[in-house]
């Protein structure tokens, strides 16, 4: 599957969405995104972890340490209340934009 470069905002949206059902660790987020986009987006750790840390600093995610499937200490991320609000906002924003672009392309 072709690797398309993701804009930072889009990556944020995907990460927030992937955490909407519950906490995940870094790899979990990556796999979930891969899953729900049916393999279209495979986020590399070089983009994923900076994004996760940035969003944690922004206050949208909070982290806690837990045990991974391989019995190792791993960092789990979950949405904060601000994060949920951000997810809702970005989702509606995205719908608006894609609708507009769709209209533009149809009428070109």
């Amino acid at each position: 599957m072709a690797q398309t470069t993701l804009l930072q905002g889009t990556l944020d949206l995907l990460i927030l969405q992937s955490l909407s059902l519950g906490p995940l660790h870094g790899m979990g987020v990556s796999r979930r995104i891969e899953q729900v986009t049916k393999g279209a987006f495979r986020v590399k750790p070089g983009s994923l972890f900076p994004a996760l840390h940035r969003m944690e600093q922004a206050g949208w995610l909070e982290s806690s340490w837990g045990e991974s499937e391989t019995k190792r200490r791993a960092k789990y991320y979950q949405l904060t209340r601000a994060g949920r609000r951000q997810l809702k906002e970005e989702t509606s924003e995205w719908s608006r934009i894609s609708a507009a672009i769709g209209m533009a392309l149809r009428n070109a």
Partner: protein
Amino acid sequence: MFDHEKQDHELDEELRAYVDLVAAEKVKQGMTPDAARRAALIETGGVEQVKEEVRDLRPGVLLQTLVQDARYAARTLRKAPVFTLAAVITLAVGIGASTAIFSMVNGVLLHRLPIGSGDRLVHMLAPSAQAPNEGYSMMEVADLNRDLKTMTGVAEYHSMAFQLYGHGDPLRVQTGVVSDRFFDMIGVKPLLGRTFLPGEEAVGAPPVVVLSYRFWMDQFHGDSSIIGASFTMNDKIHHVVGVLPPLPGYPNENDIWMPAGACPFRSAPMMLNNRAMRMVEAYAVLKPGVSMEAAQAELATVNARYRAAYPAVYPAQQRLRYAATSAREEMTARARPILLMLLATAAFLLLAAVANVANLSLSRQMRRARELALRVALGAASGRLYRQLMLESLLLALMGGAAGVLLAGSGIGLLRSVATRLTPRAGEIQMNVTVLAFTVGLCIVIALAIAAAPFAHVLSRRNIAVALRQGNVGMGTRGDLRMRSLLVVAQVAIAFVMLVGAGLLARSLVALERVDAGIDVSNVLTARLTLNFTKYNTRTSRRGFTDALLERLNTLPGVTSAALASSLPLNNGQPGNQQFQIDGVPSAPGARGPHSDVTAISPDYFRTVGIPVLRGRAFAKTDDDTTNLVAIVSRRLVATYWGARHPIGTRISADSGRHWATVIGVVGDVRQNRLDGDVTDEWYIPVQTSGANDLRAFLRTTGAMPPVVRALRGVVADVDNQQPVSSIETLEQIRGAQLAEPRLTTTLLSSFATLALILTATGLAGVIGYGVTQRLPEIAVRMALGADSRRVIALVMRDGLAIVVGGLAVGFGVSFVAARLISKLLFQVGTTDTATYVVVVAVILGTAIGACLVPSRRAVRTDPAGVFRTA
């Protein structure tokens, strides 16, 4: 948030967990654990890189890298101690000089006056056809205070000496006598107690005084219980009601202040009620927002009104008018040209210093050229590189700045004493926040300047290629050599201008020191005896005092002759302007008639002070007959107004013929006022027949001064134990005082110029040496082909001389302009004085040759084969 170690550790763990999970996945897909792990790592793309990416996003990362870069810069500086020391010392000299001079400029010229009314204080003048300021009468001041709408008020002021009793020895106190509204009007709040209240200036009001800060500290050591103390002055008891804060000694350096009514002189009914009795000065404060022009216009209007109302008081031919001049301007006008000259000098010195350090810095960067070129070639962000260079320069500049501030701070006392002779505002020179802010700003600009050259050098692509090819030999390109040579050309020009300035001032100083004041200053002690007016208000009483004093003084051991006079030679004041007429010599119509200064003297004056009697005789004790007045005149006065006529026996009159004095002698000329001024025309009268009561005693001694001083005090106390003796100094000291200011200015400028020359010499040596290094192959070839050492030296010197000649040419042009700026300070020397220019050119050429010798000797000692082997 700033616990970096912990965060790093956690990040590490987080990523390791990730790699682990990916590996586990791959194992499930069928890979072996080892292969899975390797594949996982490859897929992750390098754990370290990821960590780096995360770290870059952390807040405070900018600060962290800055701190890191700063520490790195400090480390590199520490590893090059010679460079760092040389750079810091050079900068310290330049910054120190600039800070010192700026503190003077700030305190004297820029800083607002330390009074409430600030720049709105004006000195009112009454210029006429005969004099630049006739002064005001008390009635005029009162009327002006009432009538002027552009001023908040007008107050009277005069300053005179009184005797103060009740605190140890009788003291001579310089007293400022003012209207009671004076301090409130100009906006001065007392440090202790109060100033004057309305009504205290009335004649007969209870006498009060306010002490000046300096007087309070000197005499009472800052004792705050001084309020309420009382002293006797002018036969009245005065109470101290307040102490003033430190203020500039303007209009005079007064010890104490009293309200106008307490001055018996001014408050005599004859003076007070006479509109034409111009006894006082007037000071006023402009209303906020009123311009000087508006005030001058109103003054003209009011003047016209008064002239119409009192025609007798304002005779038409006197042409008296009213004018106002800014007090701040009066306080600073004399200092301004000197301070600005010093500022320009310091700026030049700083430029020379910065040029040197820039050159040094450039050399140093050259040595690291390869390392930096590699970094740039490998993609190092140029922003980060520049930041590091800037931090290095900033560290150097700040260290130089700190050392410079310390230097300047330690010299504050010297700066103040230089300024005291030029302005009453010398006390306001301080190392305050403004000055420090200036220094910091200067350091930043300097850092930029120092970093600019190496930075431009490092980043140019040609230089990167060259550096990568040549490695650390540091040979650079011809472009470098040109840039450095230009820096040195600038330094030579700067040194030239400063040396010319110093040379001109030095020649002026020598000329000044050779000036003949007309007196013999060696071994003469002087002292001031200001007689109490009320006590010695008759000629007889004064005569009694002077006769008794002179008799006793002449018997003192170690005193060969003693005299009294009404003024001091070299007194730095203005000559008097007594008009007179010569019997039988009609004054030419239209021309200004004869006029001269008048000095009252005792018989032995000329002998004591060393003025030759050229014709006739000096005064004798018997010349005390007021019906048979006698006079002695000075040589030039005779030459100017008597022409070919023999002066002895002629008569002169100062009051239009009512009283005549016969000329009995002619004496040599003196400079009664300033060494650099004109000879003073003098008319001497016997002190016995004069009204002078502010006298100077002169004692010509054979030996040491201190016992004579003690003896003098003793003798005066014998004659009148209430008579203060003040201003004890020798004629040599008085003459030296006039030389002090030019000596200081010359020393300062010469020191700066010498420093600039040293900087230039080292800069020149550096550049020539650098050129030699660059041309080593060429020199080696020449030597191999048989060139002897003389030719090699000539080759090197030629480059050096080219730079110097270029610098001299620029310097010539600049110095013609610059010399005009100091023309006011020159004495008997023109701004284009050939001798000075010739000497300066010789000095610079000599220094340049010396500076070029070292690198040229090195060139000669080159081993031709060795050069090619290592290249």
